[in-house]
């Protein structure tokens, strides 16, 4: 299923998440299974600081701001699939707020 968020499809979100993460983790991200655990795949290269660097890249890519208080970043940034789901939720919230505004 390819859900849409406003005008952004899940596939597009997933592709852009890969692109954003490749800036931190390199081109290996392109061939990664979405469900694959990033810490297990990259070992020391995906430590807490690298995860935060991925947060920065994803924020920049999608114009969102990750709330470390409201969200368990270690959980949501543990695989491409979870990051994609997280971004989709954030974009949906943004769209909802825009609609209310």
């Amino acid at each position, binding site marked *: 299923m390819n859900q849409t968020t406003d005008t952004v499809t899940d596939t597009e979100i997933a592709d852009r998440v890969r692109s954003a993460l490749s800036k931190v983790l390199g081109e290996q991200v392109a061939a990664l299974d979405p469900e694959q655990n990033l810490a297990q795949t990259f070992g020391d290269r995906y430590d807490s*600081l690298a995860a*935060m660097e991925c947060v920065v890249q994803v924020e920049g890519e999608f114009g969102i701001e990750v709330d470390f208080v409201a969200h368990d970043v270690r959980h949501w940034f543990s695989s491409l699939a979870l990051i994609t789901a997280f971004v989709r939720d954030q974009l949906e919230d943004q769209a909802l707020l825009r609609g209310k505004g």
Partner: protein
Amino acid sequence: MTPRGPGTREEAFSTSGQSGEPIVWFRTEEQLRVEADLLARTLIGQVDRVVSYAPTTHLYGRLLGDVLPTSLRVPVQHVWDSPTTVPDLASGDRVLLVCLPSTWLMLRSLAERAANLATVTAVHSTGPTTPAMHQLLSRVEGSGFRAVEILGSTETGGVAHRTLLPRPQGRPLWTLFDDVDLVADPEAGPDAGSPADPTGAAERPLCVRSPRIARRADMERPPDRITLDDLVRPVGERRFELLGRATRMIKINGRRVRLEDVESAVRERFPHVDLVCVPRQDEVRAEHYELFYAAEAGTVTVQDIHALVAAAFPGVPVPRRVQRVGTIPRSATGKVRVDRLLAAAHGRSGSGAEAVGHVS
């Protein structure tokens, strides 16, 4: 802790030397205690508890995460191994946050709750400030949240401090700690930057004298003065403007990386490779570096470079990015044209992007 003579106990802290090997600096218990008291008196005041994101194996974390709380008899929460842990600031306590550059990205999330925040003093050190820090300070302006920055080193301890402002005008000045003096660098010429310098405003290396200078392992006693890698311009007797680094050294998570050493190590192993390390701002680690190299396809891979740097400099971060390019662009005088290199590497049009070859 190492005993050194009657009544003198010393603690060891390491820095990385010219070729990556550790250099050990010893600091007496008395120096640690004096510095913790100085920090409390000058910057922090009274607090009810401490949350520290700085590892206690480094001087900064040891002082603010161990020695100072012990002196003030307040509890500490050590979270240096968990930089995304959000501190509890809603209890009304006076809290000291011991921050690294990476801490501010997480702290930014507390801004929306600023009205309920406790009185917070956040201390920043070990690297330049980050965009997330400025965002947070803008959002909590007028609340009980204040931030200060310490400039120092393992060798000297704290040298100077300044208050961090949400919207600083120009380069905010640094104020020397009470027991630190700016002195002439003995290697910079007889009168360069000395107090007798008639202009008093010449750019000079940051050379300091203080009773808190550590003793290098091969020395009998601490040196009289130490010159750091920073360039400053004095303003009056006790303040200065920090202009930048005098060398190509950067700090990543408090670890020093000399970019010329990384380049030499790669050249030594791969003599046919042309390369350059470029310092880069980093939103999480404040500073980082990228390595660009020119080599025939298939001769040296990105993985080769990563493995070489990791093996040559254990514990030192590998480049944030390693990329093979067609050529390293240089000026007529042979200097690397970093602007053209980065433009090409990031694929911007009209910049020779076709010269960049990604390694698969």
